[in-house]
């Protein structure tokens, strides 16, 4: 990958110029589809954009000292990490050099969640701390499955390079891994039934409770970018390899929208689960499933 392609990827497609409108679009699709499923009309198309602009125009509470500085920094770190993760997705073909690493993508995807945990604790609000503790417990529970799914895919296809993974034909093992990733997505994106950390009625939005104005706008944006990055990762693994770049991009976006719709349906059809039920779900049900995926992937590797 030369410098121009790298910059084009990071800034245009699938980077910032695509990712920020896509983030707003996905937030709108989520709200609108939930509204339609509840028999409502729902918010207008530009709603997430209006929310973002309005939040930029609000004042923020005075913050002092290192704690205040950290509180201002967390949303910015979360946004840059999520934007970096989106930039790594191999939609456009590159010519040699750095091909996008799955491990780097995972680390960048995990950073916003870490920032949310840190933000809740640095806000010193009791609701923020409860939300952060919930997020930490949830993150440990789903990440085991998430990482095992990634490892099983990488082991079955003998590579951690995103571009090679996208180019290789999908095997049954990869579909099993993609399914495991899909099971983790509602928890990663804080959707019902796993919306514990940001429960708006019980703990007043959890870690976000003390955030206002532009800082809250950054959190909303990072949440939208997480949507793009997480659904983009699944789309990369699930999409068939197409040499025509515009068709590949179209199929990529189509799969992403389909995943967003599926997740919104799940969110509107379910209610929030308690923390122990959620953790039990991930540890008992899906751990078995992921262990099965890894062991069969290793078995396939030994056989070949």
């Amino acid at each position, binding site marked *: 990958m030369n410098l121009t392609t790298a910059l084009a990827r990071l800034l245009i497609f699938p980077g910032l110029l695509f990712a920020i409108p896509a983030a707003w679009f996905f937030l709108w699709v989520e709200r609108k589809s939930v509204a339609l499923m509840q028999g*409502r009309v729902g918010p207008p198309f530009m709603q997430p954009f209006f929310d973002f602009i309005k939040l930029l125009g609000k004042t923020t509470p005075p913050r002092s000292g290192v704690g205040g500085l950290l509180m201002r920094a967390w949303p910015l770190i979360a946004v840059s990490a999520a934007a970096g993760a989106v930039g790594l997705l191999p939609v456009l073909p590159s010519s040699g050099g750095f091909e996008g690493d799955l491990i780097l993508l995972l680390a960048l995807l995990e950073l916003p969640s870490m920032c949310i945990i840190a933000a809740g604790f640095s806000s010193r609000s009791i609701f923020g701390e409860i939300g952060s503790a919930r997020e930490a417990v949830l993150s440990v529970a789903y990440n085991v499955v998430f990482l095992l799914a990634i490892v099983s895919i990488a082991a079955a296809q003998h590579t951690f390079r995103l571009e090679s993974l996208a180019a290789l034909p999908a095997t049954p093992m990869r579909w099993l891994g993609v399914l495991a990733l899909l099971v983790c997505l509602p928890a990663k994106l804080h959707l019902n039934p796993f919306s514990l950390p940001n429960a708006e009625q019980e703990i007043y939005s959890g870690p976000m409770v003390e955030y206002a104005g532009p800082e809250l706008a950054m959190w909303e944006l990072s949440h939208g970018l997480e949507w793009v990055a997480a659904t983009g990762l699944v789309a990369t693994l699930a999409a068939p390899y197409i040499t025509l770049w515009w068709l590949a991009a179209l199929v990529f976006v189509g799969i992403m929208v389909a995943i967003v719709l599926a997740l919104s349906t799940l969110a509107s059809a379910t209610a929030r689960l308690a923390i122990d039920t959620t953790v039990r779900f991930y540890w008992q049900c899906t751990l078995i499933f992921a262990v099965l995926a890894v062991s069969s992937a290793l078995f396939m590797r030994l056989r070949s």
Partner: protein
Amino acid sequence: MNLWNKLMCYSRRHSPWLFHMNSGSCNGCDIELVASLTPRYDAEQLGVRLEGSPRHADILCITGPVTHNAVSAIKTVYDQVLGPKAVIAIGSCPATTNVFIDSRTLDGPLNKHIPVDVYVPGCPPRPDAIIQGVAKAAEILAARGNNPPSTEIVIAETPAEVQP
């Protein structure tokens, strides 16, 4: 007015986030406020979102006749909502203390303690009147910007064509 300010005004008018606070209400108005977000009335078409934290909200919706215990909480929450902000008094209680007038447990009406922008009278008001009040408050918010609240009183009434 430059383009950025126009966009900001438009966004403020189309994205009112509410924080609901009960100052000793009988729950009649609280139910009606929640009813305005249900499929029948669907206030989300106007961009309305009921927020969990007063820090996130633009409009503070207060119900109830303001009891002695609620006064300090109202002042705290009003300060926690960051500017530009507006206040809606939902129901007859926060506007006049209603049938509880002269009660020794009350310290109302609401405008004794914080500036109120929109009154939505009724016991309880209909959800369409509450939605109209929110829309008026959002307009006030857009026009005011970061300036301090004015003393002009706005009363939102149930639109004539839907009155029972």
